[in-house]
């Protein structure tokens, strides 16, 4: 790291300030984690305890046992829905973004504009007509409805991100593949997609996260608690057991496990996605 501009003293001060800010910013997460490990009685103590005096892991254990507090099923549902939405987004967006980056076909500009506009759509506009559509298609109350709906968030995002990746690949690479006898499709699959792999990972990660975070679609298109995603499960539980904070905070922690894992292993893709997705448009 380049720190020649800063004296040692200044470096220390900046580090301390940054750590303090980080502690304040991430306090809600810390507090949720601590609360999830306390007993219900300790949560209601005044003044509050800053760490669990009596360690309580019941709220986590109950999530995999049978009964009202089982969250494992919802977690699995969320996983299936997010993976499904991610697969659809990637499979459709990768070739689409390649087309936008490389070909000046009829209607290119209009389609690009269409993807930009869909990124700005509020879910409310799509909810009611989709609800009626899924009812007519007999898909209401299935994972499929949530998967198809969630992919509509991932696709435009992925197309807009990936077109920049494909545009930055030198055209000579593709031409060389044609000379070697590749067709358009095989050159795309065997040469271009592997080169654009970092971009494809960004799209996969974001499409997964969009699916994982969704509440509106999962809650509206799936009626059975048995098939609903974890966000809807948590929302439902909040309505029924509003003050069981030990369980509620434990659900919250479990729901962010995938997010944490993605953050730990794929941080650079997240930052790249946030910057490229928004600034370039």
């Amino acid at each position, binding site marked *: *790291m380049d720190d020649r501009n800063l004296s040692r003293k200044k470096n220390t001060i900046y580090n301390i300030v940054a750590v303090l*800010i980080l502690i304040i910013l991430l306090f809600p997460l810390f507090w949720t984690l601590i609360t999830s490990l306390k007993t219900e009685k300790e949560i209601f103590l005044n003044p509050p305890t800053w760490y669990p005096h009596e360690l309580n892991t019941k709220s986590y254990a109950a999530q995999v046992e049978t009964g009202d507090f089982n969250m494992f099923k919802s977690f699995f549902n969320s996983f299936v829905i997010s993976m499904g939405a991610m697969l659809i987004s990637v499979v459709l967006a990768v070739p689409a973004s390649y087309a936008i980056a490389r*070909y000046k076909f009829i209607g290119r500009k209009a389609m690009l504009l269409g993807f930009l506009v869909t990124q700005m759509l509020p879910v*409310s506009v799509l909810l009611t007509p989709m609800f009626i559509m899924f009812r007519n298609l007999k898909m209401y109350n299935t994972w499929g409805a949530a998967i198809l709906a969630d992919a509509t968030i991932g696709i435009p995002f992925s*197309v807009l991100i990936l077109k920049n990746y494909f545009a930055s690949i030198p055209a000579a690479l593709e031409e060389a593949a044609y000379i070697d006898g590749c067709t358009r499709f095989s050159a795309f699959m065997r040469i271009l997609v592997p080169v654009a792999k970092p971009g494809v990972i960004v799209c996969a990660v974001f499409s997964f996260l969009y699916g994982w975070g969704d509440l509106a679609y999962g809650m509206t298109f799936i009626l059975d608690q048995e098939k609903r995603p974890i966000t809807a499960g948590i929302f439902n539980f909040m309505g029924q057991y509003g003050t069981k904070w030990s369980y509620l905070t434990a659900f919250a922690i479990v729901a*962010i496990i995938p997010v944490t894992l993605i953050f730990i292993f794929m941080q650079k893709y997240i*930052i790249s996605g946030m910057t490229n997705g*928004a600034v370039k448009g």
Partner: protein
Amino acid sequence: MKKLKGFFRYDNAGLLFILPAFIYMMAFVGYPIISNIFLSFQDVSVKNLVKGEKHFIGLDNYITIFNDGVFTKALGNTLLFTVACLIFQFLIGFLLALLFCKKFSFAKPIRGLTMIPWMMPMTVTALMFKFMFSTDVGIINYILRTAGLIQQNIEWLTTPGTAMIAVIIANVWIGIPFNTILLSTGLSTIPQELYESASVDGANAFQRFAKITLPLLRPTIESVLVLGFIYTFKVYDIVYVMTEGGPVNSTHLLSTYSYKLSFDLFQYSKGSAVANILFLILFLVGILYLKITMEGEND
């Protein structure tokens, strides 16, 4: 057949790659948008949804919602919520971006960690803030009491004015990383030499900020604010989970009110009308955004 092959030979071959995604989006986004417009001119509710006997009733839904009081309240709330969130998340995000552009040893890993709030499911964020703002066990009341700022616990989420403050704070928490990262990227593109030569010429820190940073960062600031407006104006989950629009509609946004009309009261057509107005506002702002970003970019 030969003609068709010729059509797809050169640039139009791109159509073959984009058509699957295009058809998908037309089916699951394009069709619903159109269908939502029709729906808002009809009288579809739970009574005739299954039977399919719907009638064209013109602008009746729009006239009804404009006169029902809750809609205008929700519109005002949405504007207040959006502007308040934008101001705070932008200012805090900007300060953080300025801090992280200093090259201290932990700048990058700490900046990375501040991105976490943005990645979390909004339902979880809403739950955390609902807990922290709760009246008796809430840590926020405890801190305010200990600091001597309040004597009695505030009923944050069940009092109209304070409920709005609570949802705004929760949403600002989510919005800060987005502002920080985009402004950081913008700052990193400003050439360091400009600051150095300005220092040599005797400009102080404030002058350097006002004369170099702000003007050069203007395009980034514009797009951060317009995008922030779009993302905040359509927020739904945070408010729905924390307050469901209550108490007495004081936190209803256009998005939550539209949801309530459609899926709590089963007045699908009225819900659609509210959603369309939300969409129309976003669409106009969206055009403004496209104008900003497309300037100077000719593709």
